[in-house]
């Protein structure tokens, strides 16, 4: 139990909240909202959830994830050059790239929702969710030592 344990805990916790939050909205909230709520109520409710989630992302998730991630990489001795090397470096690089995809998809989702294009918004939401699971998969593929 060192300081690094705490840093890693924060990194995993924040990721868990974000991915778990998305999964909960998609798999629990959305289907129930579709069934139980009237259309206008549903719209207000879902956009409120979306806004709240956006705030959480900007105010908590991204700062924590980036700070702890950079710190962990520094602790691990990762350099820009080592990101290209096969093994740990390349897995991490792929994970970072996929994370950027997740963020782009999530941001575009927000924009598209506000412009009233529900189909495209849905596509982007699912893309973001699936790719964020991909980030978790790559995180678990990183060698532990």
């Amino acid at each position, binding site marked *: 139990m060192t300081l690094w344990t705490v840093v890693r805990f924060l990194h995993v916790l924040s990721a868990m909240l974000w991915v778990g939050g998305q999964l909960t909205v998609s798999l629990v909230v959305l289907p129930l909202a579709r069934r139980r709520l009237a259309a206008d109520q549903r719209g207000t409710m879902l956009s409120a959830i979306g806004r709240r989630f956006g705030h959480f992302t900007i105010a908590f998730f991204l700062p924590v994830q980036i700070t702890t991630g950079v710190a962990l990489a520094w602790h691990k001795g990762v350099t820009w050059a080592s990101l290209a*090397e*096969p*093994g740990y470096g390349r897995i991490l690089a792929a994970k970072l790239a*996929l994370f950027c995809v997740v963020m782009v998809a999530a941001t575009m989702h927000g924009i598209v929702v506000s412009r009233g294009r529900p189909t495209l918004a849905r596509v982007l939401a699912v*893309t973001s969710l*699936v790719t964020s699971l991909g980030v978790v998969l790559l995180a678990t593929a990183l060698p532990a030592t």
Partner: protein
Amino acid sequence: MTSTDVRIGTDPHTPPEPPRRRASWHARANAVVLAWLALTAAAMAAGDHLPVAPWLAIHVFLLGAVTNAIVTWTEHFATALLRLPAPARWWPVARLAALNAGIAAVLLGAAAGYPAVAVGGAVVVVGVVAGHTAVLIKQARRALGGRFAYLVNWYTCSGIALVVGGTLGGLLVSGVLPGVWEERLTAAHAHTNLFGWVGLTVLGTLFTLWPTVLRTRIVDGVAGPARRALPLAVAGLTLAVAGLAAGLRWAAAAGVVLYAAAAVLALVPFVRTARQRRPHNGAAWMLAAGVGWFVAALAADAAIVATRPPEEIAGAVEPLLPLLLAGFIGQVLIGALTFLLPVVLGGGPAALKRTAALLEQGWKTRTAAVNAALPLIALPVPTWAQQAAWAVLLTALAAFVVLAPVAILRSRGRELTPSPTAIGLALGGVLTALAVGVAGSGFGAPAETGAAIGETRTVDVVLGDMVIDPGVIDVEPGTELVLQVSNSDTQPHDLRLANGAHTPRLGPGESATLEAGVVTEPMEGWCTLMGHRAAGMEMRIDVDGSSGADTAEGTDHGDHQAHDTAPLNLSGEMSPDWRPYDAELRPAPGGTEHEIEITATEVEQEVAPGVHQPVWTFNGTAPGPVLRGEVGDVFTVTFTNDGTMGHGLDFHAGALAPDRPMRTIEPGQSLTYQFRAEQAGAWLYHCSTPPMLQHIGNGMYGAVIVDPPDLEPVDREYVLVQGELYLGEPGSEAQVDAMRAAAPDAWMFNGTAAGYDHAPLTATPGERVRIWVVAAGPTSGTSFHIVGAQFDTVYKEGAYLLRPDDDGGAQALDLAPAQGGFVETVFPEAGTYPFVDHDMRHAENGAHGIFQVKEN
């Protein structure tokens, strides 16, 4: 006015079957074609990860997609244009099932390594196409003929081509063909199927399909070229294929040129039609581009066939395959389907228009992408550009595989409106798969499964003047090691690791990244340029804490050093698992042609009692296999280099220009070395790669026995190849120094010093025994003598020095390095007769064995 309007599939005079049924049949038959196309894309995307990689992708495409399409559509065109009666209802379905079962058997059998299954599949495919062709001929005879009668002739010839080409393919995949035939028949097989089965079908179909696609009338005078071109094309193709198979270069080249001329003649109406009505839709442009690549590939093929020896053609035409397969066949197939699918799927003018619009979606981008990517693939451009071109090509062709099933499903009344969730899942899945692919890439050497993958370490390695710096790299077990290799010397070097990972050859100042993979055990590295390793360009990767592996390696080295210093104990015992090299010489196998496979390998051999030494061998033993034949026999040797450095062959038994057959081939390569044994004798063969001192000194030699015409039969025959033993790491400085000083550690008969002391040769008194002797050197000859026996026959270097009815006798056969001969003797009584090289330095240092002569 002889211009005519042709409408394929919408002819009002041919409603012998309800359109619904026909549309349903076409939906199914073409779904099969599309499935094979999708598999082709998958096989190409998988690249080298599949077994028999390029072969599999090529055959999934040609045998799966193209052959299915040809069979389905030739029947369609023949029945529609010639107003043939429809075949029996069950026939197309049974044919489709049998054909695809056969194709699957060919592909799976070859990929999984069951040649019998693949051959069975080839038989089925050939049988189905033969049946299909026979049905076409039979139907056409019943029909009245008419303006399009030539069509069935083209289809008949193309069907016959597949029967021939498929039979050749079956022979090839069976693996029973000797090496030299394989190359030639591969070329013949490819030409028959590509230019016969596919080429003739396409040319024959274009006469009517092309004007239909352009929605214009057939130009005047099509029938002439259509009738005249076919016999020319068939004659050309027959000549080409026969020439390729028989190894007659000029016949083959003339055949390809004749075929090309026939193709040009057949394309005259094609060009005239295009001038009458310019191509204006996707289908037409794809067909036009496809035909363009066909002509280009034909010209290139003619040039290759004319300038290369027959056994190299199969390899030399490989770069043309993308042009033919993707450029010609792929584009023609997709172009034709783009036009034909809407027509046969039907559903009224509105539906037809909608399907056509769907299939033509993005055709300009797709066609441009395909035709821009193809030159990049064919030309020698950097690897990344080539890979990018492949990706573009594959995506452009695969787009059709996505569009067409949607069209088919729509025509069957199923609307495809994928839910946003499904699109999101697919998009996310693809992106994740891409990221996982990137993450998993770059594991150069296959990492041992289960080995813990630790940190990645990068080490700078400098190749200098005959030195590698650092000489030793210590890593933790499981480390993913990456070497940043640079050449600081004024001459080229490279670095190869024992696990097979290696850099390209680096010129002065060049550098490269060498991914060594996960290191779990110690490993050596060296420069593969000849002589550089011996001069000191070696390094080691040591694993910390893996005591087991380290100790084993350590004692091994200790062993070698002990042998280097201590004299050999030749009276010691051989290891229990030692087997002597079989000195008994068998009679020449019958026949005048001998096919031999020789593989260069680097193995360990017990070279003296209890002493194991790495040796370089032909077929795993030093000396290599004994070849025997009679004067005039032809030996065809297929030589494969399975070692870690360049090797070659030099047979003294044949006279030929050394340039090609004796060339050095790199690991993994093969060559064919054919010679006629015009002169009798006991001939040496050896590795032809310099420095030969090292290659022969490390075991790469053997004997070829060519019997003199009057050779009398004897009771026993033995062969002894005398060589020298240099202990130590092959190619190491110490070993090479000993070779240069002509100071072997021992002398050997048949690869083991004093071996036949421990496994005596046998004879009975009164028997006539013939002993063939070849001196391999590399530095010393022999003076072969049997203690207690006299020779009454001596044959040396092609001539008898002594015959039994001569008065005198002989005591020794003297041979300089690379000479050979035989002696004959009759042992007078039972006993133990040592045989030696009577140079006593040699005899007392290993060139020693025993004849145990016993009464029966």
